[in-house]
């Protein structure tokens, strides 16, 4: 089965090979390492790099929410993948997408829908956004670039990305709700971090 947006995937993957600079940038963005490491380092920078104590505590709660949301969204996607495998990856159905995936990426074996990367990245972005909107902008940008690069590389359909994004955003709000209900738990971890000069 192919999703209704498979035509878009065929169209966009047709550009691979046209511009070597674009391919180079997309190959870097779509790796399993560049964006997740960058998001994590950015959150670490915000954790330590805020001088105002009140603002710092708020940002640190945002980072705790973002980190927890990343973990939970990863688990949710793994759970869904155990029961649902709606359609194959784009490179299984289309020659252009296969060429794109072989050129820029590799051929993953896990289900296409929902996209784990979108769930994780948008969970981080939304988790941060709930506590500090301005600080979340770079994470949203990185999440978006990562998602686009995976579509360009023929690894996901846009619907996979939208599905993952939806899961990530819902999970972030859920995590925020859990943080609100179980206030003493994140407060305890924050207090412990403060004792170790980490917060």
């Amino acid at each position: 089965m192919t999703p209704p947006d498979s035509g878009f995937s065929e169209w966009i993957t047709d550009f691979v090979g046209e511009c070597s600079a674009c391919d180079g940038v997309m190959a870097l963005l779509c790796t399993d390492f560049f964006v997740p490491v960058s998001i994590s380092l950015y959150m670490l920078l915000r954790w330590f790099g805020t001088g105002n104590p009140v603002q710092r505590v708020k940002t640190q709660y945002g980072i705790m929410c973002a980190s927890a949301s990343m973990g939970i969204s990863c688990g949710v996607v793994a759970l869904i993948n155990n029961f649902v495998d709606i359609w194959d990856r784009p490179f299984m159905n289309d020659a252009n997408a296969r060429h794109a995936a072989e050129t820029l990426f590799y051929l993953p074996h896990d289900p296409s829908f929902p996209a784990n990367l979108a769930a994780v990245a948008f969970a981080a972005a939304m988790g941060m956004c709930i506590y500090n909107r301005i600080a979340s902008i770079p994470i949203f940008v990185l999440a978006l670039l990562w998602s686009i690069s995976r579509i360009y590389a023929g690894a996901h359909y846009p619907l996979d990305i939208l599905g993952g994004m939806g899961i990530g955003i819902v999970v972030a709000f859920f995590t925020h709700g859990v943080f609100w209900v179980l206030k003493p738990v994140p407060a305890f971890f924050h207090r412990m971090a403060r004792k170790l000069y980490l917060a």
Partner: protein
Amino acid sequence: MVSINYDAMTYLLLTFGGCLGIYQIGAVAGNFKGLWFFRKPAFTLIGGLVILGITYICFFTCADLNMNANDAAVVEGHEQLVFFLFGAFLALVLTFIVSSLVNHRGVAQESEMVIGEGLEDLKTRTVFQAATYRWRNRKKAR
């Protein structure tokens, strides 16, 4: 026999170098003088940017390191988390040690010091000095 996963070790080095640079940039941005590797903020910031830049350039442009070669998922998602946390921890320990050595004479006047506020203490003391002060005054704190 102990087997070493070289891809995982490469990823660990990437996170270690990245975190080391980020701690210095963050310490300057947050004015945590007790974490600086140099006594001047400009040098500390440049030092942090250089460490971060070199780490990124080495790991994402050198094909031999496999961080940019998409031939397989060399480090799985859960492994990435574990290695990132371990790399961040190692970088933090090194930051605490080096900054405590570099700033062993103190970074602020006694009257300016803040004590018992966690990271806020590091605006005026090194980790070693703040921990020592807390240990000596533990009875008063109770």
